[in-house]
């Protein structure tokens, strides 16, 4: 099949960007979306033009490195799928697709479709961990975790940190990302001692990084490749209220 791509081209974070239109021929349905992009880049290089920069690594939907908007939808809009796993089967000959990077103040564009998501690392640094220095930890069986809690922790921990939630949110909020980590750690007995401090600190870091706030659009859940539910934001807010009241009490 043949496709028309309108791709955001931007030299670096300081330059202005613009859309450039390309034709891609000979796309087959068994390619992945990124393999179609590889084909585009091979053709561009053959013509002496710079290939389109986009981020990717594992190409199996787990590293969280890939991601851009296809026709305005993060990862292309197939539920539970990152753009690296998106099959060209879902497109048809003659389709016209607009590709652009995540749009958020906290995620500056680095080049073309690649953005800087280091703000996510800094949110984790603020409290997204359980302090357990390497050493002689208690026997793993000494800590019992009810299955329902372990399962919820795992549902939340499945987040791959791709940033689609931020890109989809009209407020560019990082609430789903932050709530996922807080829900993971706060659901476990090991996470209790730092529970409220963690919640307060991570939420503060989120604001410091210029992410917006949640106004319940639910776009984040819709595009999340790991189907993290928006319910976790409610859990985070509950712990945040608790954390705030505890702090006042001190």
């Amino acid at each position, binding site marked *: 099949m043949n496709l028309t791509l309108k791709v955001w081209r931007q*030299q*670096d974070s300081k330059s202005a960007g613009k859309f450039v239109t390309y034709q891609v021929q000979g796309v*087959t*349905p*068994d*390619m*992945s979306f990124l*393999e179609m992009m*590889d084909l585009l880049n*091979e053709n561009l*290089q053959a013509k002496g033009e*710079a290939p389109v920069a986009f*981020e990717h*690594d*594992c*190409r*199996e939907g*787990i*590293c*969280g*490195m890939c991601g851009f908007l296809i026709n305005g939808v993060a990862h292309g809009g197939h539920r539970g*799928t990152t753009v690296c*796993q998106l099959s060209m089967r879902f497109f048809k000959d003659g389709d016209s697709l607009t590709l652009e990077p995540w749009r958020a103040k906290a995620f500056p564009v680095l*080049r073309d479709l690649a953005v*800087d*998501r*280091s703000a*996510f*690392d800094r949110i*984790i640094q*603020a409290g*997204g*961990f*359980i*302090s*357990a*220095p*390497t050493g*002689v*930890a*208690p*026997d*793993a*069986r000494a800590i*019992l*975790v009810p*299955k329902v809690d*372990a*399962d919820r*922790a*795992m549902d939340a*921990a*499945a987040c*791959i*940190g791709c940033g689609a939630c931020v890109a989809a949110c009209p407020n560019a909020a990082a609430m789903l990302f932050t709530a996922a980590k807080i829900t*993971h*750690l706060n659901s*476990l007995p*090991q*996470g209790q001692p730092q529970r409220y401090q963690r919640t307060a600190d991570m939420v503060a870091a989120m604001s410091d990084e210029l992410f917006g706030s949640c106004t319940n659009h639910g776009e984040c859940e819709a595009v999340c490749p790991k189907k993290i539910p928006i319910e976790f934001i409610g859990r985070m807010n509950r712990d945040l209220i608790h954390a705030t009241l505890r702090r006042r009490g001190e």
Partner: protein
Amino acid sequence: MLESNIPSGPIEEKWERSRFEMKLVNPANRRKHTVIIVGSGLAGASAAASLGQQGYNVHCFCFQDSPRRAHSIAAQGGINAAKNYRNDGDSIHRLFYDTVKGGDFRSREANVFRLAQISVNIIDQCVAQGVPFAREYGGLLDTRSFGGVQVSRTFYARGQTGQQLLLGAYQALEEQIAAGGVKMHTRSEMLDLVVVNGRARGVVTRDLLTGAIESFAADVVVLATGGYGNVFYLSTNAKGCNTTAIWRAHRRGAFFGNPCFTQIHPTCIPVSNENQSKLTLMSESLRNDGRVWVPKKKGDTRPATQIPEVERDYYLERRYPSFGNLVPRDVASRNAKEVCDEGRGVGPGGMGVYLDFADAIRRMGESVVREKYGNLFDMYEEITGENAYKVPMRIYPAVHYTMGGLWVDYQLMSTIPGLFVAGEANFSDHGANRLGASALMQGLADGYFILPYTIPNYIASNALEKVDTSHPEFVAVKEEVNRRIARLIGIQGQRTVDSFHKELGKLVWENCGMARSAEGLRSNLERIPALREEFWNNLKIIGTGEELNQSLEKAGRVADFLELAELMCLDALEREESCGGHFRVESQTPDGEALRDDERFSFVSAWEWKGEGDQWELHREPLAFEHVHLTQRSYK
């Protein structure tokens, strides 16, 4: 010359004793010592976090945008530990035995025993960090059994165990970054090692955003940069996985151990098109209920469901009646290749075999099959568009892991003093074949529990003179790196990096893949240098070195693969025996099974780089087996 430094005494006491004998660094002095860690996967992140906690000045580097992206994240199945929570006869000794035997007797006993001992601590450490392992209703940890062992010792977090273990290490690392113990350098690729007075003293890196070439000095350098499976172009590795860090260190004097030992995983989704960039693994657990078959007739193009039972060849069940579809990875892979080479493969291109669940569905019902394997069937449909409940899956082997890597002694130190190597990047524990769920175990053992002892010991035992990046050696290496980049960009030929990489991958896959012959290897030893020659004369890179340039990044990596591939073929040619994943067609039993030659090849090959254009020199580390009896594996 090769000193493995295995401590004396009974195998059970070696690690304990050597830990006691190690020298310590006073807490007040640790801050004065800098440790560079390249790579932020399980081994790198865990080592960086642990050494940061101890008080060392740690610099950690990764080429991705965040340490959380490292390819450890993609491991699915689980992590082994000799906890014996099931009371099913497991023990440290049994995990040790299974690993040595599974590696087809080509690993070091003392290292493997230590690994089995430490496995127990890893699970405790990870649970303390909040890794959400699967639990039973009583709240206890769940385990499952895995690839060819008879006990249930594999801990798991759904199908995302690697992800969860990596996030545990990543979070510990981020905590240290915030505390100031570790300085993280993301989007930073190591392009060379700096050796001063015979010791590893630093690295030269490229900032992938700006192209700036920078130098960093340290007392110790750790490489935890993963495996080199991408030399085959198509593999289950992430696209960025590469050999550059360990290859550059090899050229600076670190011996390369067993480069030809690669693991080909039997259950991957077959290649479907010329533009394919990556292969996807389907969990090995599918072989518990799926039956592997091909048509008896060559070139049979009928749809699977129209091929009657009598015209199907369930070749694994036929050839291995006692293990059937559950033979080890190397055996299953080789057999799939054989039937496809006979012209009986299925699917586009004929490079696939069926993995059929029709019997399982008849026996257990579709809902039970869905419960056990639903996510895998979904993933298969996502990629192929086929419903595996209705038609059999098609699978084919794919490169998955490299057992070879830089040679290290018992302390995980390479032949360059001060250069330590951890995780998949070293050659250490898996011999000629790695068992399932052992890669995560080894990465974390190295990073959490071995390096945090052996690195301080090295620092405390050696008077390391002060060296900074103004040292002439640093200046010279930086200059070399700059020249190499200028040379790559300056070629301005006709072919893209990917086209070279694909061509190299095909050569290595054809002649140094699942079956290797002297003839094929010799032909590769001529064709690979020729391809390398063409690469350096006909490569085309658009853009400059002073910007984000993904083609340039790839070019540097492919240039190193082009050298490594030659060494792999040389090693495979030299080892005239079959063992584990290394199958020499000249060395097989009368019924076509791998035939080891313990008389001649019970050693580790450690290759020394002798300079551009000169032949490598082979050093042999003899392997002694005192606790595991050498046997020929049989799965008939």
